[in-house]
């Protein structure tokens, strides 16, 4: 049976309804950064929404990257752990080194429409089995011990997806 190495992706949406402290800080910081940076692409002040800017100034696509500078300090605070997603024991267990930040919506005059997403991409996991709606996984880097390998059960849920798959014949 082929050994399947996967990466899980968690798309964390942050908007005005976000309640956690970390999420609120990210919301505030990314909106402030957006207001600064969008002015470069909106020099004639013709547009108000991110969608309008993007539609008319294709180079504004770079705003995803530029505004992400406001997030990096907060990502560091997570200590490499993907937030929110827990295993079936209620513990956070997914590690990440890669992410992609995106601005979903924003508006120069309406903070309430600011909505961003951080796509967390997990480090490689070995997908051993599927039990109901749960995936049985282990760290791809973890050593196999005599009594087996340490595993986690994680439930398939909205905004969590398998975003890469590598099959190796063993």
């Amino acid at each position, binding site marked *: 049976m082929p050994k399947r190495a996967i990466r899980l992706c968690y798309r964390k*949406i942050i908007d005005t*309804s*976000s*309640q*956690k*402290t*970390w*999420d609120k*800080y990210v919301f505030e*910081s990314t909106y*402030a*950064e957006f*207001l*600064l940076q969008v*002015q*470069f692409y909106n*020099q004639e002040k013709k547009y108000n929404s991110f969608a309008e800017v993007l539609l008319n100034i294709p180079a504004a*696509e*770079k705003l*995803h*990257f530029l505004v*992400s*500078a*406001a997030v*990096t*300090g*907060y*990502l*560091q*605070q*997570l*200590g*490499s752990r993907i937030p*929110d997603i*827990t*295993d*079936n*024991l*209620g*513990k*956070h267990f997914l590690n*990440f*080194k*890669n*992410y*992609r*930040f995106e601005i979903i919506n924003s508006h120069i005059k309406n903070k309430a429409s600011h909505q961003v997403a951080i*796509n967390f*991409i997990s480090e490689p996991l070995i997908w051993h089995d599927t039990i109901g*709606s749960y995936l049985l996984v282990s760290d791809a880097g973890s050593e196999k011990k005599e009594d087996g390998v340490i595993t986690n059960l994680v*439930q398939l*849920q*909205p*905004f969590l997806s398998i975003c890469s798959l590598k099959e190796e014949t063993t």
Partner: protein
Amino acid sequence: MEHSRKNFLKNFLIGATSVPLILEACKKDTVTETTTTTTTTGTTTTTGSCTVTPTETGGPFPTITPSSLVRSDIRLDRTGVAFTINITIKNKNNGCAALSGALIDIWHCDKDGYYSEYGGTSMQTVDYTAVHFLRGRQTTDANGLVTFTSIFPGWYQSRATHIHIHIYNSAGTSLLISQISFPEGSTSAVALVNASTANGYTKGMTGYTYNASDDVFKDDTTGAQTGTVTGSVSAGYALAITLYVAA
């Protein structure tokens, strides 16, 4: 066709029913319930699921953190000839007095002509230290001065060597978006640095676009956008320029 339409409707229903529940789930650390009712060809199936509440020791505790652009040393992982950038901002609306408290964003390319950015579908690594290289933000002091530590920029096709600058007032409102050009000539820093293969500059000046042919700088006949550059390849260079804004 009929089949794909059904699938579309099915997907639509799943989307429509789950989204409000997801939003609810994001609000607090409680059990997340997702119930989806799907009707396909006369049969109705209901699947219910819930995930466990996070049950862990508290922390890490978030703290408010400034943008990673706020830094004076913008080199990060980039190498090249040492370069200090001194920019003074003066206010045309206040008798050309120094403007303090202004936010200054600068960015420029590395020795090979590349900017930090991502395109298409690429992702960033959490090697935060290198992601936004050669981009920085500082606030002007009482003398209207900001200083950045960087590496001497290289060049790329159809552009003269330049530094981008965006000046905002203390409230973050854009005052000026401009670019700084460099002096030219056989003994100029631009010529000497780009010939410095020992420091990793490989392009020389073949194919270089000089200021007079540069689309951005060719109308700057008085050199108002050109910085004063002093130093040497071995000791590094320093650029100084004063820019005037209406604040």
